[in-house]
């Protein structure tokens, strides 16, 4: 069990507020995530859902409230931030692979420099992860030579190489061609089944229905409604949720 955390709650957010200039993006978000839980966070664009998950590894700073990740409270202490970042993996909409490094180096870089693993161990782990995401044969290529779906799977392997306790997905399939979405979702599904704690900002409702333990609807920087997928899909409580779902489920 993580140090100082009550129960098996791995992320605790209380009254999280953030402003971009004078624009109030996050308005008192309260959310608790248990170990092994898979959350799908959805909502209209500009509702603050991406900003919210980016506060969890401090890519965005929150200006009021508390965020505790794996027993460590996020503060301005850079050591805390780096400790949390090495426990929290993140996958971006635009992949953000390192174009000057081979696929293998992309995956083995952080374990070597942050975890101080020897090269052999890091590369062996990297190869195993590439096998797990289904592209062991691409190890020596460069990101620019891969398809979008393959790049996103490398990005997932790169995040997993740090052996994180939590994985954040920020619209992982939004930049992909339709025929490549499934290969990425398959990897995410497999990861969810292995017991990883996951926060996914996504509009893949099939994924949400099949895999998510809980769905969280964001609007205007607030959590409007949350619940199990069948509850959200079949019996949403709020009008805003109903309207949004009717617009994306044609």
């Amino acid at each position, binding site marked *: 069990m993580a140090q100082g955390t009550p129960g098996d709650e791995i992320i605790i957010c209380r009254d999280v507020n953030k402003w971009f200039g004078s624009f109030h993006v996050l308005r008192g978000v309260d959310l608790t995530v248990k170990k092994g839980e898979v959350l799908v966070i959805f909502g209209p664009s500009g509702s603050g859902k991406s900003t919210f998950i980016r506060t969890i*590894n401090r*890519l965005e700073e929150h200006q009021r409230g508390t965020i505790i990740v794996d027993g460590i409270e996020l503060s301005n202490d850079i050591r805390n931030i*780096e400790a949390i*970042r*090495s426990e*929290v*993996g*993140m996958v*971006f909409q*635009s992949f*953000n*692979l*390192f*174009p*000057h490094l*081979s696929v293998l180096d992309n995956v083995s*870089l*952080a374990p070597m*420099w*942050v975890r101080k693993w020897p090269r052999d161990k890091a590369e062996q782990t990297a190869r195993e992860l590439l096998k797990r995401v289904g592209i062991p044969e691409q190890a020596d*290529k*460069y*990101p*620019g*030579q891969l398809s979008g779906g393959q790049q996103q799977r490398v*990005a997932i392997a*790169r*995040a997993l190489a*740090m052996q994180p306790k939590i994985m954040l997905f920020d619209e992982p399939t939004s930049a992909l061609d339709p025929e490549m979405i499934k290969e990425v979702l398959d990897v995410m599904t497999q990861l969810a089944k292995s017991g990883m704690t996951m926060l996914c900002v996504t509009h893949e409702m099939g994924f949400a229905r099949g895999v998510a333990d809980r769905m969280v609807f964001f609007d205007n920087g607030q959590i409007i409604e949350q619940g199990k997928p069948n509850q959200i899909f079949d019996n949403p409580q709020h009008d805003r949720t109903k309207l949004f779902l009717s617009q994306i489920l044609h």
Partner: protein
Amino acid sequence: MATVTDTIKPPRSSVGPTGWLRKNLFSSWLNSLLTILALWLIYNLMIGLWGFFSTAQWGVVTANLRLFMAGRYPIEQIWRVEVCVSILVFLLGASWRAWGGIMGQMGMAVGGLLVLLALLPFETNSRLYLLGNVGLLAIGFGAASLIRTRRLWTALWLLSPFVMAALLYGGFADLPVVATDLWGGLLLTFVFAVTGIALSFPLGVLLAVGRQSSYPVIRWFCILYIELVRGVPLITVLFAATLLFPIFLPEGVTVERVVRSIAGFVAFTAAYNAEIVRGGLQAIGRGQNEAAMALGLNPLQTLWLIILPQAIRSVIPAIVGQFVSLFKDTSLVAIVGALELAGIANSVIQQQAFLGRQTEVIVFIAAIYFVGCYAMTYASRRLEKRLGVGER
């Protein structure tokens, strides 16, 4: 079902030599006129060149060859320069074997040049020395076949400038000091260019990074420095370094003129390099930084492993352009009294025995500058291609 149409050859009249001539040289009356004009110009140029080369007397170059190569470096110590050349030739031979590619081509070019020079009617000792260096090239090649660890050869390359500087300067183990004010000619040009490039590049990168720093003191210092230096002509910086700078030194401390001029060069070029590198830094998306941070890399690791390699790769052509420019600008130090290649040429032209032979001298040093610059741009093109692997 649709069938694929057979490929058809292009019409006959648009291919072949006649087609090429018609398309490229005589496609309209204006183009025909320009072609004839160009042919006339080329003819005249050829006549002029023939006129020069058939009557040129290279005695002014051969008689002053030592001056051109090493300036006033004392003749009884000149073996130290020769040893330095041999060290470089040996390392080049080893690198030819260890890396191949551009090193192989450089090795072949230098080997060919050495053989060619050995065939010219120099005195026997010089020719033996040249041939000895060809042998050394081969020995280096052989040594690298035996010891294949590239890391060793890299280390030796990095060590070699210090060894050579110590050897050339002396002042230890019975080697008399040869002050840098006595160094000259091509030797001095190389010293300027190599130290100028080797020091101004990292300094430029530091300034570029500093200019983007979130600490205002560092950022403002870098901006001030860069803008100040870029607003001043190089020759002014050199004057300041050679004439003004000594005034600020405490009494009894002297810095040799050559060292002061190098400092001026480095200070000047670093500012330009900084702006070039800054352009490269700005071209890198925020996503790279975020991805690196999200993995837990600290800011220094992010800069060193992720940002700088990409930034520098994208500015290689511009940076090499800056280096070429520095190499040629070394000729300006003649004005502040350091006799590098151009300075030596200027003094050779004044010799009574060779009055009126300035064209030969200028053609000779121009050829040397050209070879140096071309080698740099060629190497940069190769490097770009090699590093371009996996470009987005």
